[in-house]
């Protein structure tokens, strides 16, 4: 029995570590704020995609999220930080070249909008411009 106990515990720990990670309160807060930003674009006919990405921003680092977009659509990528900070959003094409975007920056909330000329993969970068970092959330809308 003693021999089986460590094996059983290892399996239990492994199972717990691969289980789906629940969002923290800070991430939930950041998501709500990101949705508030995206909500403003809804007035202009943009539909908010029912999907999001939450992560942690550290000083001098950026978070890079891959998205696949369609030529013909217009997009807004909206993000918010849970902690006081200044953040910015930028978009790169699949070769890593930055694309020109319209942008909105308001401290811990930011957004970037553009209409891709080509369908395919793009990278959305969330940058910590000022602050100590913390949780952030990214959502996007399209029309």
């Amino acid at each position, binding site marked *: 029995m003693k021999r089986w106990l460590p094996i059983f515990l290892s399996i239990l720990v492994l199972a717990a570590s691969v289980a789906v990670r629940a969002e923290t309160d800070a991430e939930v807060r950041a998501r709500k704020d990101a949705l508030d930003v995206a909500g403003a674009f809804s007035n202009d006919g943009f539909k908010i995609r029912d999907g999001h990405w939450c992560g942690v921003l550290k000083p001098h680092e950026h978070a890079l999220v891959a998205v696949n977009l*369609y030529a013909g659509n217009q997009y807004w990528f909206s993000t918010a930080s849970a902690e006081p900070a200044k953040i910015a959003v930028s978009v790169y094409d699949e070769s890593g070249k930055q694309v020109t975007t319209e942008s909105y920056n308001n401290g811990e909330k930011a957004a970037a909008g553009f209409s891709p000329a080509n369908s395919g993969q793009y990278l959305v970068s969330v940058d910590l411009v000022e602050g100590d970092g913390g949780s952030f959330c990214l959502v996007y809308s399209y029309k």
Partner: protein
Amino acid sequence: MIRLAKLCALALAAIVFVATGATDTGRLPADQLAKAVRSDSISIPTPGELFAALGKSEKTNWSGQYRGPMPVTYRNRAQIALNLGGLIADGFIAVQAKDSQQVKNIGSDIIKLAKALGVSEHLLSRGKSINEFADNNEWDTLQEELEATQNEVKSSMQSHADQDLVILVTLGGWIRGTQVVTAAIMQNYDERSAKVLRQPALVRFMQSKINEVSPELRQEPLVKDVSEQLNGIEKAVSFPAGKTPAVDDVRKVNEAVTKVMTEIESKELPK
């Protein structure tokens, strides 16, 4: 009212910043590109996004893209998951066609298939909402509801330790969506519409997710077959950036996805 005022203020602020906020151009190094986060919840577009891009550039005959009633008595769980994704894409087509009865029929089939996977408990209320929105012709809300339904199916699968089936739902939806879009473009070809077909990274990502499922599931004949055919589909949608797919290119993609869709729908599984 206060919320509306806040939103208006935010929109106004956005317009002000839009006028002044064009970013400088720069370039990301290749190692950073490779490290970008990729996730089902944000990196894979919904059928609704694909149809939105198509809907702008031509007068699409959405109801002409309907297919006959699907059997909801599949026994193989992988096949049910793939068909569930396809059925959700059918729901988006019915929304585009603004066909309330078709939306209700598909909503009911989605619940039946989800029940076969044991994920229907939370979905029953979604089914009721879909019917209500369809009766009231609330098409934008219906589209949101379908997206939410798809995500609820997936999160329910995750909580039931059916994580591996999630990518099959996504894949089934993408295959059915691409079948419909290619068929519509072939009927009424124009260059702007054809541009939506370029998605090599998306297919590569879905293939990589299938490679991560359990060896048992990966060895199931249908999953193995679909996975093998994805390699060909990836080539078919790998147009150089800036190149518009010609009618023949569109036909090739349509033939490739229709072949996979036929196998997914078939009651006889590949051996």
